[in-house]
């Protein structure tokens, strides 16, 4: 028995989505990237994956800091595994270190010619795309930046949809004065200038607030000013479904209001919202990148695409590799997600025959 059985209509839509190659492969690519980003520490990290020292195996990737003393390095701060590897190779002993493909984390600064300045791409150094203005590896910055952006966008999506669906559905179902007042309040709320609010909020938040809390504050502010769009679709959807006979039939059996909303109206209106999801993700990534570019987004030193773009445009002639790599990363991600969105829209289109393939 299958654990999860699609409604045959939904199954048909999924089958049609798979037929649209460009969207389907983009979806797989995004899925692979997101899955990969869960294990990013194993591939892009300054900590070694495995260290074999004096017959014992160490796995430093996850868990507490292993000080240099452990491997006979004579210091009590975190081991520099790149140096450790060189040292073991010089000694020629049985000890060995397995480093990630890119042995840098997104926060550490590497000097170039003795000072912190952008280093050009170099395979011998392990900086495949060079470093940024403070000597941090660009591949690491880009990938961790992507990871934060995509998870930020998913959180944004879930929160805006939850609020938008709940309020829109209530307005559509109950209608009347509640709907009228709710609509006017939403209209007023939509006209508050989002950017000013962000600037004001972050000028008030004290610098002692940790980075993670700042990210949550940014998310909250963005959600507070973005949930209104969904209410329009849900409101009309609920209005439409509520007047149909199957809802009347459920009421005639004696179904409670919550049952009518959650078992009957919501499942019939939600399908259309799936179409909007990829575009919401694209919007969120763009918004947070733009905010980062302006300096109001994710707080430093969080790796972010917008911050890299800013560095790149500031050093356009001296370090063109920064802007090139961050631009291409951003364009690739947005294009992939937009392809997925296009394909979903096409697959869910009630009018089957269109030009797009």
């Amino acid at each position: 028995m299958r654990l999860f059985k699609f409604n045959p209509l939904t199954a048909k839509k999924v089958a049609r989505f798979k037929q649209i190659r460009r969207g389907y492969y983009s979806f797989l690519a995004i899925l692979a990237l997101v899955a990969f980003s869960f294990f990013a520490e194993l591939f892009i990290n300054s900590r070694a994956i495995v260290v074999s020292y004096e017959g014992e195996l160490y796995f430093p990737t996850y868990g507490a800091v292993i000080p240099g003393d452990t491997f006979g390095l004579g210091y009590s701060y975190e081991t520099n595994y790149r140096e450790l590897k060189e040292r073991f190779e010089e000694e020629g002993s049985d000890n060995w270190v397995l480093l990630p493909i890119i042995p840098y984390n997104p926060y550490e600064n590497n000097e170039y010619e003795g000072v912190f300045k952008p280093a050009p791409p170099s395979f011998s150094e392990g900086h495949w795309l060079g470093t940024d203005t403070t000597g941090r590896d660009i591949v690491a910055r880009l990938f961790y930046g992507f990871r934060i952006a995509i998870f930020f966008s998913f959180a944004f999506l879930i929160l805006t949809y939850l609020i938008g669906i709940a309020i829109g559905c209530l307005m559509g179902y109950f209608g009347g004065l509640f709907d009228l007042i709710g609509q006017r309040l939403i209209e007023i709320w939509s006209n508050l200038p989002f950017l000013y609010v962000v600037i004001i909020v972050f000028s008030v938040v004290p610098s002692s607030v940790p980075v993670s809390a700042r990210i949550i504050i940014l998310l909250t502010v963005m959600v507070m000013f973005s949930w209104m769009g969904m209410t329009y679709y849900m409101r009309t959807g609920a209005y439409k479904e509520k007047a149909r006979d199957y809802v009347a039939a459920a009421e005639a059996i004696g179904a409670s209001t919550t049952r009518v909303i959650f078992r009957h109206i919501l499942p019939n209106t939600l399908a259309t919202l799936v179409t909007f999801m990829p575009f919401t993700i694209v919007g969120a990534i763009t918004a947070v990148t733009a905010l980062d570019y302006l300096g109001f987004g994710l707080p430093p030193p969080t790796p972010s695409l917008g911050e890299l773009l800013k560095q790149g445009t500031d050093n356009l002639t001296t370090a063109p590799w920064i802007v090139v790599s961050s631009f291409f990363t951003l364009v690739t991600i947005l294009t992939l997600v937009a392809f997925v969105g296009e394909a979903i829209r096409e697959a869910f289109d009630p009018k089957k025959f269109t030009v797009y393939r």
Partner: protein
Amino acid sequence: MPQSDCTPLLEVENLKVHFPVKEGVFARAKRFCKAVDDVSFSIKPGETLGLVGESGCGKSTLGKAICRLLQPTAGSIRFEGESIESLSKSQMRPFRRDLQIIFQDPAESLNARHTVGQILEEPFIIHKIGDAQERIRRVRALLDKVGLPQSSLEKYPFEFSGGQRQRIGIARAIALEPKLIVCDEPVSALDVSVQSQILNLLMDLQRDMGISYLFIAHDLSVVRVISDRVGVMYLGKFVELADGDELFANPMHEYTKALISAIPVPDPTVRKDRVVLRGDVPSPIDPPPGCAFARRSPIEVSEDVASQPGEYIEVSPGHWVEVHPATVANHERFLVRS
């Protein structure tokens, strides 16, 4: 004390359902659409009351108001002697077991995202009847009762034909073994051959379970087959109500006569005297004053007479007619008596 078997199952008295017509954003409703206007009738246990009339005459509104899917504006609805017209949603729930509805379009009245099993299980879940296994057993019994294969359980409504879907709708309505089912044009959306199957099913169920029907239709030949008594509605009001045989044999009201003359006869050689009405049905928002039908009746009367209201009286035992100079030939014979 009335005898128990004489107590009507459903009594409707002076029921009105008016919808406010709003004009402009801030305007209060000044005018009302009188969809159902001052209607009284009763249904006995095990009886079928047919209800006919043109589109827009308020038949469906009346049916939905009785099921409390619409809030009546005035009047009373008594079910087994208890007033249900102003009960709250939760107070109404126990009555829902005895009072069900079948809709016209089975495609609309079944949730496309639920399987037939889920649809038929819902009444038992809502009324907390049995555990999961017991419910499935009952759902299977329901499928048998309405003549659907057991394999329907996992299928979705759109995988069925119109007639089969209506069987699902009927199965849901009889799930809780109701005493009264409002059938809101249950066969209008079906092919003629399928119509008779569904009508037979409804009559079989009535015989087995003793259900009463309020059978709404616009097809007189359908109503004739299934109904014990027939009511004719025009513009929100009853214009004639009588036993089925009596109504078809001896229609009094000109409107009823016109409807009966419009029943198609499957014999091209028969010449029929059609009673053709003048003009269109007036809007229920601004009905003409007095008798709403007078200006369309084949019996022509002056405007002065037309603007006098008619009188709904029992002309012979069980035969009620809206008596007005324009609606009933030789109307004086009835008015003298009253």
